[in-house]
């Protein structure tokens, strides 16, 4: 079945093409088309996954473009990592599309919406099965565009417009780095194919400095896509898009592509400890940085967005400290619970028509399904014991500690504390207490929205059991079986770490309960004491403002300067020469006075000058 893996992205592509041409007329048909085709894709993906677990791999390529003697090829490959991703993406995509059928039912542009989703799913799936970096990059960019299109789906909203633009440009900065890294690797390894690159790396054909450079450049690409510091600013803004999009693209799949990329290129990173360290530090820093911002945001989707950034930081951290399986594992579990959280948040928003958590409250009773599902998600992400997040996070802690990165370990712990805190801050503000919203009639979402949430809820709860220290490291074994070269040696669980982490998480939840649930502690306790801390956090450390006053300001000023330069200098030279030519003409005309004797005089002078020069230079007067 793995040989048919190319079918997986094909169905969504089909969906995109069909909907592009007919979507506008069909409306509800559009949703069905999208859902069904994605479901087919999911089915194939699952069979591929099963097949692959059975041990079969595939690598098919065909010639795509000839550059002199070099032939660039396209194709697909199936290995454990991408088989897993394939199924995961198809799965989440299917669920989100199902959800969207209900969520977007009222939107007049639903056809376009599903077309975009189809294109995105196609791109993401094709990205996943890419056998070479170039193909990967192509689809990497395409998913970026889909993200851009979907963020700007509500094109008439200025915020959406700005957010879409920002998303595109900021990720493009990362993309360019990836682009450079990719090309550098090509000239080092002579090929874009992953296999060839890794071979070259292992054979030591690439200078260590170059390895580090390319690894870091590629990592910058991942940073852009996965919203890592300092290119994280677009991701929270991206929440201007429809909520299902946030769930699918900006939580579960696309943003995880950065992590996936690093995992994919793992042999490269293993060859450079500097690059590994960079990844770990950026990941760790992002984890706590974003989590701290998430503590104070008021927009439910923004909180979740910062949470995503933070969790992606975790994954990077894991990869950076050698926890390959941990990173990928967390990627998977995160996909489940974050998608769940977003969908649940969407359900809430759908119900109360606001995203401001201060305007919610007391929804537990009214949203009988959404509430518990959200809670499940929150517990999972916080790492509540025995839920999926618990296991994956645990592995990250273990890996960090195993690599001897004490500081990062501490940071990760604090971030975990923050995570638990802000998730439950959300939970309590939304579902507990009195209702602060204006909406009179709050209804639970329709079944098409609830079903995906329930499925995801189940996964969020149980997803962790594919790889646990207690019940078997299935995932790690699977990866280990096929890719020995990664040098995976996961140290199993470490009870001490588990206990510490559990305590921290519970502490976070408890604190949130104290403040927002029980209100034992005043909410202004901290913001009253050190208001600037709150303010700094609320304004996201002024990163956006900082960028605005440096990079944006500089670019704008520079381009204004060049504009003037172009207008007055470059163009001015042209005008000057025209003026010069006309001046000569004017001079001639002035001489042409109409006086015949003037003409004669001019002739005479001209003539005399000629023979005078001749006489003088010719040595006549000797």
């Amino acid at each position: 079945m793995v040989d048919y893996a190319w079918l997986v992205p094909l169905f969504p592509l089909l969906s995109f093409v069909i909907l592009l041409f007919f979507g506008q007329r069909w409306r509800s048909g559009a949703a069905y088309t999208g859902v069904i085709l994605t479901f087919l894709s999911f089915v194939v993906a699952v069979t591929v996954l099963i097949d692959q677990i059975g041990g079969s791999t595939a690598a098919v390529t065909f010639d795509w473009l000839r550059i002199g003697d070099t032939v660039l090829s396209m194709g697909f490959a199936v290995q454990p990592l991408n088989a897993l991703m394939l199924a995961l993406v198809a799965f989440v995509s299917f669920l989100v599309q199902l959800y969207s059928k209900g969520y977007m039912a009222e939107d007049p542009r639903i056809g376009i919406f599903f077309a975009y989703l189809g294109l995105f799913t196609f791109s993401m799936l094709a990205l996943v099965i890419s056998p070479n970096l170039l193909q990967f990059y192509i689809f990497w960019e395409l998913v970026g565009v889909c993200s851009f299109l979907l963020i700007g789906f509500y094109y008439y909203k200025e915020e959406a417009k700005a957010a879409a633009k920002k998303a595109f440009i900021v990720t493009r900065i990362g993309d360019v780095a990836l682009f450079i890294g990719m090309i550098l690797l090509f000239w080092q390894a002579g090929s874009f194919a992953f296999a060839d690159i890794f071979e070259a790396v292992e054979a030591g054909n690439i200078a260590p400095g170059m390895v580090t450079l390319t690894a870091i450049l590629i990592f910058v690409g991942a940073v852009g896509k996965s919203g890592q510091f300092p290119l994280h600013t677009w991701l929270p803004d991206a929440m201007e898009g429809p909520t299902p999009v946030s769930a699918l693209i900006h939580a579960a799949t696309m943003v995880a592509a950065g992590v996936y990329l690093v995992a994919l290129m793992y042999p490269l990173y293993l060859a450079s400890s500097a690059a590994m360290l960079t990844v770990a530090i950026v990941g760790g820093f992002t984890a706590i940085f974003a989590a701290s911002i998430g503590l104070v945001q008021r927009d439910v989707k923004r909180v979740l967005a910062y949470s995503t950034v933070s969790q992606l930081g975790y994954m990077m951290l894991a990869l950076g400290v050698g926890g390959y399986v941990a990173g990928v594992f967390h990627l998977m579990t995160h996909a489940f619970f974050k998608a769940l959280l977003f969908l649940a948040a969407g359900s809430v928003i759908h119900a109360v028509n606001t995203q401001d958590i201060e305007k919610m409250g007391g929804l537990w009773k009214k949203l009988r399904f959404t509430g518990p599902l959200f809670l499940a998600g929150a517990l999972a992400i916080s790492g509540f014991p025995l839920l999926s997040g618990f296991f994956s996070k645990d592995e990250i802690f273990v890996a960090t500690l195993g690599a001897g990165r004490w500081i990062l370990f501490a940071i990760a712990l604090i971030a975990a504390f923050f995570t638990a805190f802000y998730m439950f801050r959300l939970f309590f503000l939304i579902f507990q207490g009195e209702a602060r919203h204006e909406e009179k009639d709050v209804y639970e979402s329709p079944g098409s929205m609830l079903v995906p949430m329930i499925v995801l809820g189940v996964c969020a709860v149980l997803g962790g059991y594919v790889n646990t220290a207690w019940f078997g490291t299935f995932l790690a074994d699977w990866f280990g079986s096929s890719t020995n070269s990664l040098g995976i040696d996961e140290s199993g669980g470490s009870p001490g770490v588990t206990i510490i982490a559990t305590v921290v998480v519970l502490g976070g939840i408890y604190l949130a309960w104290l403040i927002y649930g029980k209100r034992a502690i005043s909410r202004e306790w901290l913001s009253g004491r050190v208001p600037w801390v709150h303010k700094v956090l609320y304004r996201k450390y002024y990163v956006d403002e900082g960028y605005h006053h440096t990079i944006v300001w500089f670019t704008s000023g520079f381009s204004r300067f060049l504009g003037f330069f172009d207008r007055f200098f470059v163009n001015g030279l042209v005008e000057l020469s025209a003026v010069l030519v006309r001046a000569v003409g004017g001079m001639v005309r002035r001489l042409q006075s109409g006086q015949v004797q003037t003409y004669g005089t001019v002739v005479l002078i001209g003539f005399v000058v000629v023979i005078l020069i001749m006489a003088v230079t010719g040595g006549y007067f000797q």
Partner: protein
Amino acid sequence: MDLETLLSFHWGIMAPEFTIFITAVVLSLMDLFFSRHFNRRLFAWWALLGVAVAFIFCVTEIGSPVTTILGGTYRLDSFALAFKMLLLIGAGFVLLMSVDYDKKGEISYRGEFYYLFMTALLGAMMLTSSADMITLFVSLELLSLSSYILAGMRKNDPTSNEAAFKYVVNGGIATAVILFGISYVYGFTGTTNLYEVNEILNAGNANPLLFSDRYLIVFSFVLVFAGLAFKLATVPFHMWAPDVYEGAPTPVTAFLSVVSKTAGFAVLLRFFYVGFAQAAGLHTSSQSGPEIAFASLEPYFAVLAAMAMIIGNTAALKQKNIKRLFAYSSIAQAGYVLVPFVAFTSLTVGDIWFYLMAYLFMNLGAFAVIQVVSEKEGSADIQGFAGLYRRSPWIALAMAVFLVSLAGIPATAGFIGKFNIFLGALLSSHYWLASVMIGTTVISYFYYFGIMARMFLRPASHPEKMAFPLGAGIVVCLGIAGTLGFGIFPNAAIGFLHDYFQLGNFFPE
């Protein structure tokens, strides 16, 4: 020398000149004896007949060997023949134009106009054939005097008179200057025959006496050049041209700018390349002895050519009067033709001939249009061309072709002519001269396209259609045929020249 000797010459080779001469005489007699009511306009066709017959005689002379009469006072060689054919075609065109000129009858002496025109043509033709300075001088004067009178033909029009007067004063001075130079040439060589002059002055002979006087010899030739340059209207001897072109009747302007100029170039070529080029120059080097005079003068000529191109093209930019504009344009064109003169290669004579031919077709075509338009408008203001495309699309199109050709844009004869000139200039490594030429050519786009912009882009001041008279119409059609034909199939002319003419026999043995 007795009568037999005289009769032994091949007087037949002068048939074209005789034809023109006879036509002039017949026309003058007709003018004298025909009734006053007879339409003198019809003389044009008679004159044209004469020109055609002369042209046929020229054609029959193609391929005949070099023949001289009376010790070189008249010399028929391929060079002369080739230029004569140009002159005849040009004259024919001007005659055709003149049929329709002056509908209002400002020229009361139309009969005189035609036979003076014929004598001018006779002078021009003789110029190309004269290998003797006396013949040369007298022919030149015949051409000039006839031209002076023709320029003043609209005698009730002050501008025409003024033009004629300016022409005569400047021309008179130029004549004196030429003569002054010629007198020294005669003095130093004792002969008036250019081929003998060449023999005596030839630097190879290294005559010590002449060598010591080489400065004076060079100066005397510069004097002659100055006088001839006046005819060609190259800078700085050009200043009369705009005024005269503007004031003279349009066909006369056309004649001056094409026929007279062609004759001027013919005589310049012969005078310099034959008579003078080999004389001792100013500078001497210990190894190779004295350089030839042409080499010493070359840089000066080059500067003059460059100035003609620059001044002609820049001054044309702001002209309001179309004839005046064309005067400056023709100054610049003369500058272009001077380039191969300066950059002497084996291609020079052919290049000049071809360029003058192209110039003939495009410039006379343009003048035919100018004449008709300015007659209709009652003024030669460039504004008269506004909206021509609407009033008379074909004529506007034709004018556009002429202008494009004058600007030297491909698919026209003007381009091929310029191309040949560049080729020659670069072949002889005159890089800066070629650059000036091409740079000023680009400047010329401004005013040529300016006229086109007026014709095609501006609204017409009044919308009535413009009919085109027969004579001018024929000129325009032939002009188009020549401009495009020789632009696309240049070998029709170049190959013809190469196959049937031996331009080499123009040079002394």
